């Protein structure tokens, strides 16, 4: 996929853990997450709410909420400036170096474009700020670039729309403007955190197509975070399935859909309606996501799993093993001892 000469991934996250110290106790939203994204590759991260998807993306940019900190792991990122690999997990989150990477190298699209824009600044003001932050230029040049970007994301009358406030645009237009802002400083990695969840169904598909088209045309790496398997099916090449702050299955998108290996992924796929098989009843996943204050021991999914192989599910974390080429899962049904 990658057109880069080098084989090193763009970003390589290894065993990343985050804890949040709260008055009520210690929360562990990430427990050793590992994944990698190559330059120009589109990757999906899937999971229910509370599985740590958003925490992962915030950790990459080091914009974790107060009280949260990275306790272990590495985020090796090959930066635009000099192709140097830097570890974003250990870099000072307040440093100029980190600020340069935010927006300039890795940028983000958020779930709620209405509240993600400031209500009292125009779209132009906020996009131009992003441009000038990473590429100092005069106001007229920045203005031309803003209009160019709005045109690129398919906003008609970009020159007039630029002076609108977020609340004057429709939901779809707002998300397009958000995408324009994310692309403003020519990032290498675009993180889209539930980019279509807040939109009307009819608009969702168009915004998704836009993201996909821009990703290919601009050669961006894409990290698409969603709870909606339908969203990733046609957008990404490779999928990571997360549960309670861990990656429990990963593989090429077709493999995940056709041969899901982890009971959680299987249950997730059974819980979405199918157009081709209308007689099949939907099967919800039993129980609910355990509290992040009291994580289960052993396999995190054992409290809801219908395919337990014995007592060790409760005691031991299964290894992440290859079940077919490039397709990995963490479940005892695939380890030698388990079968």
């Amino acid at each position, binding site marked *: 996929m990658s057109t880069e000469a080098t084989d090193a991934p763009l970003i390589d996250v290894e065993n990343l853990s985050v804890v949040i110290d709260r008055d009520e106790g210690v929360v562990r939203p990430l427990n050793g997450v590992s994944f990698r994204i190559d330059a120009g590759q589109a990757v999906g991260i899937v999971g229910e709410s509370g599985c740590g998807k958003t925490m992962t993306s*915030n950790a990459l*940019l080091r*914009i974790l909420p*107060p009280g949260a900190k990275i306790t272990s792991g590495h985020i090796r990122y090959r930066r635009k400036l000099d192709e140097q690999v830097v570890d974003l997990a250990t870099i000072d989150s*307040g440093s100029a170096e980190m*600020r*340069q*990477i*935010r*927006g*300039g190298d890795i*940028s*983000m699209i*958020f779930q*709620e474009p209405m*509240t*993600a*824009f*400031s*209500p*009292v*600044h125009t779209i132009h003001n906020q996009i131009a*700020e*992003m441009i000038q*932050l*990473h590429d100092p230029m005069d106001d007229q040049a920045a203005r031309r670039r803003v209009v160019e970007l709005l045109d690129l994301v398919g906003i008609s009358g970009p020159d007039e729309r630029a002076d609108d*406030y977020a*609340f*004057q645009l429709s939901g779809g237009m707002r998300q397009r403007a958000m995408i324009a*802002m994310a692309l403003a400083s020519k990032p290498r990695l675009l993180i889209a955190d539930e980019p279509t969840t807040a939109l009307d169904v009819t608009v969702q598909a168009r915004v998704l197509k836009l993201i996909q088209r821009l990703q290919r045309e601009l050669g961006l790496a894409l990290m698409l975070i969603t709870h909606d398997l339908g969203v990733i099916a046609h957008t990404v090449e490779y999928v990571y399935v997360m549960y309670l702050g861990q990656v429990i299955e990963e593989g090429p998108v077709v493999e995940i859909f056709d041969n899901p290996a982890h009971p959680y992924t299987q249950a997730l796929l059974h819980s979405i309606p199918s157009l081709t098989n209308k007689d099949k009843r939907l099967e919800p996943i039993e129980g609910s996501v355990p509290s992040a204050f009291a994580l289960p021991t052993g396999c995190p999914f054992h409290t809801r799993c219908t395919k337990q192989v014995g007592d060790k599910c409760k005691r031991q974390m299964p290894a992440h093993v290859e079940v077919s080429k490039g397709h990995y899962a963490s479940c005892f049904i695939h380890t030698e001892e388990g079968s």
Partner: protein
Amino acid sequence: MLNYIIRRVLLMIPTLVAISVLIFIIIQLPPGDIITSRLQELQAEGQDISEEQIEALRARYNLNDPLHIQYFKWIGGILVGNMGYSVMYGQSVNNLIWERLGFTLLITFSATLLTWLIAFPVGVYSALRQYSVLDYAATLMAFVGLATPNFLLALVLMYLGYEWFGIAVGGLFSPEYASADWSMGKLGDLLAHLWIPAVVIGMGGTAGMVRIMRANLLDELGKPYVTTALAKGLHPIRLVIKYPLRIALNPFISTVGWMLPHLISGAAIIAVVLSLPTTGPLLLDSLKNQDMYLAGSFLLMLSALTVIGTLLSDILLAITDPRIRYE
């Protein structure tokens, strides 16, 4: 925008007319009038006043006219800038008020300035470093400040000023300057006296404003647009100033106009305690003594300032907040 302002100004007219009628009715409501009570005072002192003198007085204050004629005479006078005559002070209301307005504005203005200079930085710091030692200290001080009655603080400061520095801190001038002409010495003397009322009046407001500033900013700091701006790579200090702080100021802007009536009526009790030559005690006295023209003019001025202040606030808010402007 211009249409909006014109419409609002036109709406002010019926509002003020209604308020003036209400005020006039209210000051007429208590039984008796100031002439009767004045008369009783004089008779108690053993003075004899003839019927003609009483009639002359009543005629002079239009007390023999029917109520609605009295109202029109009063309001007509105000429209041409004559607010009537105070029986209690034996002076025109205009004189009484103008004489004190300057000092009142000076004191309220310096108290407000002091309030803002302290409350804004402390409130912002408290929000940015929530639950830090200094935040807890600021919170404690704010609650103490809110819980202490201002007049008590005034008394304490007066006592301490006298005990420690040997100065009489009441009033705005030392006796030797009180009736002197303006000079550098008198100005210095004024400044030496000004800080006590400024601190006393400002303190309650400062405490309250620290809490409001902190709460407003904390609300805004949790908003998604802050995360967006952070993810752009903006420096945290520039970010706070440009986005959340700017929006956290809107509630202030929407109430800043209410300061206008406060300029005149504010801190009457403290002014009494500190014997300040301001309008507050004058208003209090006029109400106690049924000095109808003085009280009426005061109340009308306060109402007019409230209405104008609200309009100013709304216009300012429309300028700073596009969500209001485009509604």
